[in-house]
């Protein structure tokens, strides 16, 4: 080991240049300021959440002072803009649940199959082509899907089923289902690819085929991640707005029959926003109460989904 005389490297040796110290001081200040600015940028996301909660709660409190919570949750009519207003959220919930159920009946099976196929079966080139296409499918603006549901899928369904009304939850749900396939399949595929290779190799070594390995080994191992994919899909479907607003009609209708027109929570907000309601009126406050209901529903699903997603990350 050659020892280096450190002092000889710095001719100024013991003498500490005061300017240099001052320079270092200003440098530290600058670093702190920049760090603080970056922290503020990161804090904007927290502020956004606080803002959402505050605004929704603030306007809803006024609304719930006017309409008791029990009426809101149990009344079966939603007619806040009529001369005799009724404020029961159930018709909006039934619309939301029905369209989401139709969408999930499409998205969950297809999303799962696509995820299994891409993760366990597809050759490299197919995956390289299929994944960007799925991404494009998720990137199409929702208003385009709304147009597609109203003016392509509904007429198509009417040729098979002539009694189907022009606005119906079925076509909105079907199109919404195809729209959320990419969300479901990408999360589910990530979960399946996180399953260690050794598990698959064990199955193959025992003579398992691809299909058996996928369904009996990989899927059970990735179950929490796949469940997270489904739950995030539910959250997507519940919060989707334009497809249902365009294709399912905007009349609140307490029914679970997908062949009928109905309004979802989101469609109601759109309908009110299209009109010209004065700021501070009870009608104006209803959309915040509806929004709060929607926010709490999606928050529940998102938290559950992230919790499940985190579990599969920790498993291996």
């Amino acid at each position, binding site marked *: 080991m050659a020892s280096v005389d450190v002092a000889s490297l710095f001719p100024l040796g013991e003498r500490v240049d005061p300017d240099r110290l001052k320079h270092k001081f200003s440098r530290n200040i600058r670093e702190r300021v920049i*760090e603080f600015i970056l922290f503020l940028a*990161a804090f904007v996301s927290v502020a956004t959440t606080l803002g959402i909660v505050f605004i929704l709660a603030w306007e809803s409190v006024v609304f719930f002072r006017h309409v008791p919570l029990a009426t809101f949750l149990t009344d079966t009519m939603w007619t806040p803009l009529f001369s005799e207003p009724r404020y029961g959220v159930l018709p909006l919930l039934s619309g939301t649940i029905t369209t989401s159920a139709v969408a999930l009946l499409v998205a969950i099976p297809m999303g799962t199959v696509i995820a299994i196929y891409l993760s366990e079966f597809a050759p490299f080139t197919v995956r390289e082509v299929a994944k960007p296409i799925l991404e494009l499918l998720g990137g199409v603006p929702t208003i385009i899907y709304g147009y597609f549901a109203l003016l392509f899928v509904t007429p198509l369904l009417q040729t098979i089923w002539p009694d189907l009304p022009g606005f119906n939850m079925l076509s909105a749900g079907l199109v919404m289902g195809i729209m959320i396939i990419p969300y479901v399949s990408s999360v589910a595929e990530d979960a399946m690819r996180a399953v260690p290779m050794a598990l698959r190799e064990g199955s193959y070594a025992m003579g398992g085929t691809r299909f058996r390995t996928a369904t009996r080994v990989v899927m059970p191992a990735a179950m929490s991640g796949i469940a997270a994919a489904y739950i995030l899909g539910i959250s997507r479907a519940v919060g989707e707005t334009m497809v249902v607003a365009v294709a399912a009609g905007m009349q609140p209708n307490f029914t679970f029959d997908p062949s009928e027109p109905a309004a979802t929570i989101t469609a109601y907000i759109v309908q009110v926003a299209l009109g010209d309601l004065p700021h501070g009126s009870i009608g104006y406050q209803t959309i915040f109460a509806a929004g709060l209901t929607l926010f709490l529903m999606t928050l529940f699903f998102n938290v559950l989904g992230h919790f499940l997603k985190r579990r599969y990350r920790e498993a291996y």
Partner: protein
Amino acid sequence: MAAIASDRDPHETKLRALRRLIASQKRWDLVFACIGVACLMVGVLTLVALFVDMAIDGVPRLNADFFSSFPSRRAENAGILSAVVGSTLVMLVTAVVAVPLGVGAGVYLEEYAPRNWMTDVIEINVTNLAGVPSIVYGLLALGLFVYQFGFGQSILTAGLTLALLILPIVIVATREAIRAIPIGIREGSYAMGATKWQTTAYHILPYSTSGILTGVIIGLARAIGETAPIITIGALTFIAFLPPSPVKAEAPFISFEWLTSPFTVMPIQMFNWTSRPEAAFQANAAAAGLVLVVMTLAMNALAIYIRYRLRKSIKW
């Protein structure tokens, strides 16, 4: 003679049974692979059907007049000039707000954030915000920007709303791009006496530019197609004028008057035309939708291409 003997051979019978079992199991592999491809095809066909359907209805309307006319009560005179200008200006505001905030937040979380509860809160927040339905952002904007801050139904309000909406996308993309940079780069920079900010500004940010760019483009592609939050803030749909020009003939030559101007954007214009019963207006909707979908698909394709190039070219 030998064949008859082998028929009675118990080993041979077992072997045959086994072969049959393997064959039937392998058939399942094939069947499932076919189902997987079929499901992918449904996605692809939807994309194609959507595109072709809009092209058939919309292409006849796509001429120079369509791009240079204002909306009109007469379908054949209507155009998308104000919507294109509105979308461009709103995107400008969105990008100017979302890029510094998103990149700053991403840098903070990856490079600066201490491990404490505040960082956990910010991280959980970002994941949660990504799942909040877009219409809830619209309600936030309605309550906060339009009424509390008094920005009105302006380009500024819309731009800020969409910026908050795509913030999680930009933050996540930034973090992923930064995380891919090996620690050795940072250590090299620190060893040369660089401060944290110098390391970030001269190494981390330049090396993660394409990754960040991908996220920004995907975010903007999402923002340009968002309809629900813009409707919720109460944006007008009939705008037959342009916002004031940002460039003035007299000093100081730049004006920000356009920020407070009422506006319309592409998806709103399309929604407006879609919700009219006349076929002529629906043809306009198809044409506007075609322009919109080409814009978003081009942006998404660009992002996918940049990411592909990035994966090929960078070898740390």
